[in-house]
């Protein structure tokens, strides 16, 4: 696989995974004992 392709794959997949990770972290962060069961739940 060439470098250009790897860079773009990382950019798109990594970008989406990072946003998703941040959102999931936000959901878990407030109440780590009950993953995904945030304070508002």
């Amino acid at each position, binding site marked *: *696989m060439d470098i250009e392709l790897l860079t773009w*794959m990382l950019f*798109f997949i990594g970008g*989406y995974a990072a946003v*998703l990770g941040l959102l999931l972290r*936000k*959901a878990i962060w407030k109440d780590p004992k009950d993953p995904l069961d*945030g304070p508002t*739940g």
Partner: protein
Amino acid sequence: MAGEEREQWGSRVAIIVAAVAMAVGTGNIWRFPRVAAEWGGGAFLVAVTVGVVVWAVPLLMCEFLMGSRSRLGNIGAFRDFMGPRNTWAGAFMACVTIGIMFYYSVVAGWCIRYFVVAATGGMQPGIEGQAFWDEFIGSPVETIGYHAAAVAFTAGVVFRGIKGGLERVLKIFLPALLFILLVLAVRAVTLPGSGEGLRYLFVPEWSLLLSGRVWLEAFTQVAWSTGAGWGLMMVYAVYARDREDIGVNSGIIAFSDVLVGFVAAAIILGTLFAVAPDEVAAEALAAGNVGLTFIYIVDLLATMPGAAVLSALFFLALALAGISSFIAMFELATTNLMNFGVERRRAAVWVGLATFLFGIPSAVNITFLDNQDWVWGVGLLISGLLTALAVTRYGIEKARAEINETSDVHIGRWWSVCMRMIPVLFVGIFGWWVYQSVVDHPDTWWNPFETFSTGTMVVQWLVLFLVVFALNDFLARRVRAGPMTETTSSSDRSRV
């Protein structure tokens, strides 16, 4: 509802899993790769990302808000957000999605059939995808039989309720689907020659971002794939726990859906370009959803080492994706029926019988299925517009404040701007589809008996509009009252 315990999802993870399973459907596997490869790869993905932010996430938040505040299905939610005079809008949305459900169960049946054949070793080298498809689709006994199997399974799930049925099944289906897709993706990207397919997907042709068509295709893909504007999230939110986080959950659903699309595209395009000569790969991508998935993929997987296992895994993933979306549509119809005072189990049986009967024309006639896909698929854009109008009527800033009350992330003014832009986007996307229909079929675009004409869309929508307009007052009175329903006439409405 007095004295009756309200059904609800068991946890936050349950509603997220159910909503992601709803959004991830067959379209992620058979449509996204095809359209992405055709419309500029990485440039298309940039346009998709903009679409997620300005169309999908705002609309999913609207649906979440409407369902969780009104605690009613689409018909009741629209009555309580837009006023009793606009109850028809909720009925229109519900009917469009139910129209899709009638043929989607047939497609789910095809997926089950292909999985059964693959799992029993029927997809070996030498199989001819076209002949295999023709034989299957030409046998009404088989197509109706598998359609019935899909309906029976789904009715059984919805029959058992939110926690005992949907939550239990979807918590198995979604992880299984994601695991299978990851296994297939690893296999695909490690095939010699797969890089060519991946280049089609990820490496941008920036000049295409200047093309209006790329943006239209990207927004259409987002509208169809994420489930925003279908009314499904609205129904799942009816069963959300109090003060469920609307902002973060909607973001998770939309971004997960697109990420799964990336993985599916890596599987399809990586395999296609690794196994087939470039011209055959291009031919397969041009063969449409059905041609690509049920004909070309069958041919290609059969030529690979481990064909039996790979085919079984691929069609299992497709079946899981199809059924998990079908469950959401079935639940939409069931919840709306329950709001008229029908008990869940009875409602699930009635919806099952109706889905089986009204799905038969699509099971025996693929032209009819194509027509329904065209009419109600484009109709979803109207449903999205109606959702945005309902929240506009309710008050965009008021809605944003309520979303922020329960969100762990602050939803800024961008959301209000997007809400105001949605009608403009609708005119652009919808206008394009009509224009496309006229250009592609210059002599027959007006003909209501043509499969893909503007005429057939307009006539079928008009019939639906007339019916829901005529029933407006009846529906507004008969749907039970929810926590938002004005009490002045609640004595007429509290029938459950």
